């Protein structure tokens, strides 16, 4: 635990700020690290540099006005956050979106999950010093952005879902482009494996590095690939199936010893599972309307509600307390990276500085998501 008792400073330990502006802290996270030479003695992640006050904003905005905020919290899996918020409000108000809208939402959400994992792959390899995979991963990611841009109008911060359905319908070029993309990405696994997975330096840099086992994950409340790498198959899409995930079959890849290499392998396999989900969803895409008529200002009944979903980084949840008016009384977003980042205080002491960056990259955090 990060106790800050000022004990006598032995001469060769010094404090280093892997500060808010650092090439590989994925945004504005500051790791206040106490170093003994190259070895990390104690780390105190200082966050808040990306805090924008989302929850305070929710209390003075309608439910509809909060929609654009959701993709800006975790801008790498914006569609997943958007989908979860809309599904939460629909559950509160009892609005039933048409099946076509549900399938479109699942397709776009899974595409966004693949894009988020690709972005992570590029950034993670760059943290380890290999620059080229970043460009290949971004090359594939641009295809997804084109597909989602065509239907939602934006590349990163998708405001595509509405209460009761989606904003625009999906046409054949979208479906055709998605199928081509799936074929193309499946062809690229061979390149990624040759360039990264079979790369001996990569394996040595990530095997048995930053081991997060079941007990640490339980104590810190980690979810997502970090928890699945420890061998626990916890995926909200499987445990609490929402939307149409119950009708689609996909596996939950789990790792064995929870080190950085396992987290890498899990994310690759998760991308493959997402492609399978997209294919099934596209095959079963029903016709019909894309949105049920809903009142302009949604007024959910009184009481508090919790809705859990699976974002690219773990279990995401919206805890909404409604007082019957069109403004949420309190809106708390349970964010997966919050618990994942905390494990650093337990896992990092004793590792080298190079490993610190490797572990930080392997748990895949997005800072404005943690700071909200």
């Amino acid at each position, binding site marked *: 635990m990060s106790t800050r008792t000022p004990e006598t400073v032995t001469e060769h330990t010094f404090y280093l700020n892997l500060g808010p502006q650092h090439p590989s802290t994925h945004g504005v996270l500051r790791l206040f690290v106490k170093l003994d030479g190259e070895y990390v003695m104690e780390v105190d992640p200082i966050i808040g540099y990306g805090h924008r006050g989302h929850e305070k904003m929710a209390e003075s905005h309608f439910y509809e006005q909060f929609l654009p905020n959701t993709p800006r919290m975790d801008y790498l899996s914006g569609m997943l956050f958007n989908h979860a918020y809309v599904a939460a409000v629909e559950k509160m108000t009892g609005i039933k979106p048409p099946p076509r809208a549900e399938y479109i939402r699942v397709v776009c959400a899974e595409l966004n999950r693949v894009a988020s994992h690709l972005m992570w792959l590029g950034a993670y390899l760059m943290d380890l010093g290999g620059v080229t995979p970043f460009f290949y991963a971004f090359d594939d990611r641009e295809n997804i952005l084109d597909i989602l841009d065509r239907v939602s109008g934006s590349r990163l911060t998708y405001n595509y879902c509405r209460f009761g359905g989606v904003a625009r319908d999906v046409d054949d070029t979208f479906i055709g482009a998605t199928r081509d993309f799936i074929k193309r990405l499946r062809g690229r696994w061979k390149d990624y494996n040759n360039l990264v997975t079979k790369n001996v330096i990569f394996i040595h840099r990530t095997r048995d590095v930053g081991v997060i086992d079941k007990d640490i994950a339980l104590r810190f409340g980690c979810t997502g690939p970090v928890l699945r790498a420890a061998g626990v198959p916890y995926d909200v899409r499987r445990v609490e199936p929402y939307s149409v995930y119950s009708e689609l079959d996909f596996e939950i890849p789990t790792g064995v010893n929870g080190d950085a290499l396992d987290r890498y392998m899990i994310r690759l396999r998760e991308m493959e599972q997402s492609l399978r989900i997209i294919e099934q969803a596209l095959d079963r895409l029903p016709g019909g309307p894309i949105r049920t008529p809903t009142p302009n200002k949604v007024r959910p009944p009184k009481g508090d509600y919790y809705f859990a979903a699976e974002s690219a980084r773990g279990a995401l949840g919206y805890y909404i307390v409604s007082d019957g008016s069109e403004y949420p009384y309190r809106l*708390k977003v349970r964010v997966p990276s919050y618990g994942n980042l905390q494990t650093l205080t337990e896992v990092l002491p004793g590792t080298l500085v190079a490993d610190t960056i490797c572990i930080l990259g392997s748990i895949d955090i997005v800072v404005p998501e943690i700071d909200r």
Partner: protein
Amino acid sequence: MSLEDLKKELEEIVEPSSVHTRDYDRNGCLLEIRAERSRLLSIAQAARDAGFFLEFITAVDFTEGPIAVYQFNECNAVSRIQVKVQLARGESLPSIGRVYDAALWYEREVFDLFGIRFDNHPDLRRLLLPEDADFHPLLKEYGKVHAFRSAREIYVDQDA
């Protein structure tokens, strides 16, 4: 240790009347417990032994005083428990940092945004706002909010 065993154990800690089962489809959680602040540590310990993990700690500000909301969940089955503690204005809470390490940051965040102090928390300082901030933003008096209600208006079905 499934949900029923934990439920029985919790009923010994807290008198049975304050353990309400909630319908999952509407509220997203199966069990809701209205606990006293003194019972909190034992509830957390019971959940920890049952293999639950801490999903989040937050607070909701009401006219009588903030309600602290603790939520626990299990990995392999849907078994979400919410623990609500009604606090008077300015009252503090015992820290469950010893039981769940995740609680350390959640408690610091609740202190930062709501001003609720947690006693014997090893390192209670602001988490999100700059160190020299002197206000707690998520309190309803701060800034413009739509409404500032009492807990009884919202939790109509249970006796608040």
